[in-house]
């Protein structure tokens, strides 16, 4: 047998480089949100009702986004699935009851709003601080071990809930909205809750801030690298531990903020709140693609809108609208809307 040799077509480097495609931005999931809203319009019939429901749904979605964003952040960057996230949400809400209780004397529109913002700050600080301890004691030994993460953070959740009961008591605590945030703006026949407007603004701010830090700074890179091979990042000379702590604290603080938003939305809080929202936020981040901030955002909006539309059109269906949405999305995109690679 003799050799059959063909000359390699010396591929020009430029062509080869061009052949390696850059990821294009995927608009489809965002379009889905719009499509859902538009499709609901004729079904609902009345434009004012549609407007009321749509705005309410978007606001609800953004509140859910805030509560879930910390979880996505921690999962997306650090690959830690924090089943204890709910506790930080509950903690934020309880701190808000205390702060708003103490600032009850602050009157007038500005005073009341100031109280609310103070509550947010304090809740974020508290949740962040507890998150710091949580990371040290509970999460640190189990980086990279999913199963243990699930188990140990669940244990943390139990303990956290009990401690909340110890401090604030086991019962329900009212968290009334200050008067400035009560009531609705009326656009024709459509009623748009004032608090919902505030929630939308805060949700969008959180979203923008997250997207900026993750995509425009080296921090995001470092953390993603650290998750895959922490020893290597350290060998390159970075103190990854501190960064990890930072991310966890940020995630917990976001949960605290989410807790305040959620508590004010519900206007009361119970210690079991964490467990109750857990399922909802898990559904949202699964839909989003586990770890994608944009995915979580879109997922939350879809959940919010769909809950309101089905609730209006066929309330029975609303019971299963979240899980139905999740199944549908996963059948369409098995990794969620915006899949995060290697997960």
């Amino acid at each position, binding site marked *: 047998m003799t050799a059959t040799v063909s000359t390699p077509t010396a591929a020009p480097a430029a062509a080869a480089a061009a052949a390696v495609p850059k990821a294009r931005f995927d608009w489809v999931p965002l379009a889905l949100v719009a499509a859902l809203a538009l499709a609901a319009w004729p079904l609902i019939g009345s434009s004012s009702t549609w407007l009321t429901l749509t705005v309410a749904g978007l606001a609800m979605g953004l509140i859910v986004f805030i509560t879930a964003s910390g979880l996505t952040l921690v999962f997306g960057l650090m690959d830690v*699935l924090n089943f204890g996230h709910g506790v930080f949400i509950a903690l934020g809400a309880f701190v808000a009851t205390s702060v708003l209780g103490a600032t009850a004397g602050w009157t007038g529109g500005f005073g009341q709003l100031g109280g609310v913002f103070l509550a947010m700050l304090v809740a974020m600080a508290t949740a962040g601080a507890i998150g710091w301890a949580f990371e040290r*004691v*509970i999460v640190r*030994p*189990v980086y990279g071990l*999913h*199963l*243990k993460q*699930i*188990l*140990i953070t*669940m*244990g*943390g*959740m*139990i*303990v956290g*809930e*009990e*401690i909340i*009961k*110890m401090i604030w008591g*086991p019962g329900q605590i009212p968290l009334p909205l200050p008067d400035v945030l009560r009531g609705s703006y009326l656009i024709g026949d459509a009623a748009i809750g004032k608090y919902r407007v505030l929630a939308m603004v805060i949700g969008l701010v959180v979203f923008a801030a997250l997207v900026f830090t993750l995509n425009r700074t080296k921090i995001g890179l470092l953390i993603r690298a650290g998750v895959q091979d922490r020893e290597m990042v350290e060998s390159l000379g970075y103190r990854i531990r501190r960064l990890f702590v930072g991310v966890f604290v940020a995630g917990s603080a976001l949960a605290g903020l989410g807790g305040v938003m959620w508590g004010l939305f519900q206007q009361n809080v119970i210690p079991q709140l964490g*467990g109750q929202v857990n*399922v909802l936020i*898990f*559904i949202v*981040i*699964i839909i989003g693609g*586990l770890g994608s901030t944009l995915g979580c955002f879109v997922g939350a909006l879809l959940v919010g809108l769909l809950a309101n539309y089905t609730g209006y059109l066929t309330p029975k269906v609303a*019971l*299963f609208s*979240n*899980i139905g949405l*999740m199944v549908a999305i*996963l059948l369409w995109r*098995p*990794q969620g809307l915006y899949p995060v690679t290697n*997960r």
Partner: protein
Amino acid sequence: MLNRILSHDLPKSRWLAIALVIILIALAVAPFAFPGSKALSVAAKMLVFVLLVASYDLLLGYTGIVSFAHTMFFGIGAYGVAIASTRLGEGFGAVLAGLGIALVISLVLSLVIGLFSLRVKAIFYAMITLAVAAAFQTLASQLSDLTGGEDGLTFKNPGVLSPSFELFEEPILGVMVDGKLFSYYLLFVVVLVLFLALLRIVNSPFGRVLQAIRENDFRAEAIGYRTVVYRTLSNVMAALFATVAGALLALWLRYTGPDTTLSFEIMLDILLIVVIGGMGTMYGAVVGAVLFVLAQNYLQDLLKIGETALANVPVLSSLVSPDRWLLWLGVLFVLSVYHFPTGIVGKLRARALQRAAA
């Protein structure tokens, strides 16, 4: 002989062997050795949880699948018996029919969930099952005509198993030989047999493949194992065993409701037990279930003592208040994931190994 019964999976640690023998004997003579209805309910609950947790260990410890829908199958078994007994009237026929239908439903459901979602990554699967379990709970509450909704179903057991049945007028060894006693021994025998069956399964060639899949599913595929088939099968089997455990619980309680079978808390209990006992060791289910149920039932009493002792120390006394027993269970849990990553059984075995090496 013993080796065959235990499928060559011996305790491999003297202390573990001793513990297992004590547990076996204690459970076998519980109605006589520990009279009183609380002790008996505790023992029965241990039995049910041994089976339930062992079936979950097949999934979690051996196959490496994290599922939060295990209580769903537990519930299906319990509701199967409860619904059949209320609809068809008490009797063994109803119990068997209920169990049969429940097994079929569990089979189909676990097959569907398995085929649909076992291809996705572990974490995805865990969260999907969490949502499915929540939805199932809603469904059970919605179908209240059938399931009794939030209140659950109270029903009567077939003749010999009902508490009013008494074989003799007089107590034997200080214990009334009644339906309760029969129910207990029914549980005991079924759990013992099924546990040994599970032990056999995990030590079969099939069970070994499950471990391989847990370790490296990519490699398992590359040497010719179809992992989806194995995973699904493991999922189905775990579901079926859990269904039986649910049916046993229903028979024992003569009551089935969402709180006893479907609630997320039960799922947490299962997880706690697997971890404390030791994942991937069937014996962990036994040791873990026994310790956990004991703690669940007696930790409060223990804390009560602590509280009285510390009554004057302000913060501490509220920490050890019996009402905060769950706090301590949680702490125990965290510590055991932390310090006994391989659970009690793993720890005992490692010690035995070290001693053998030294």
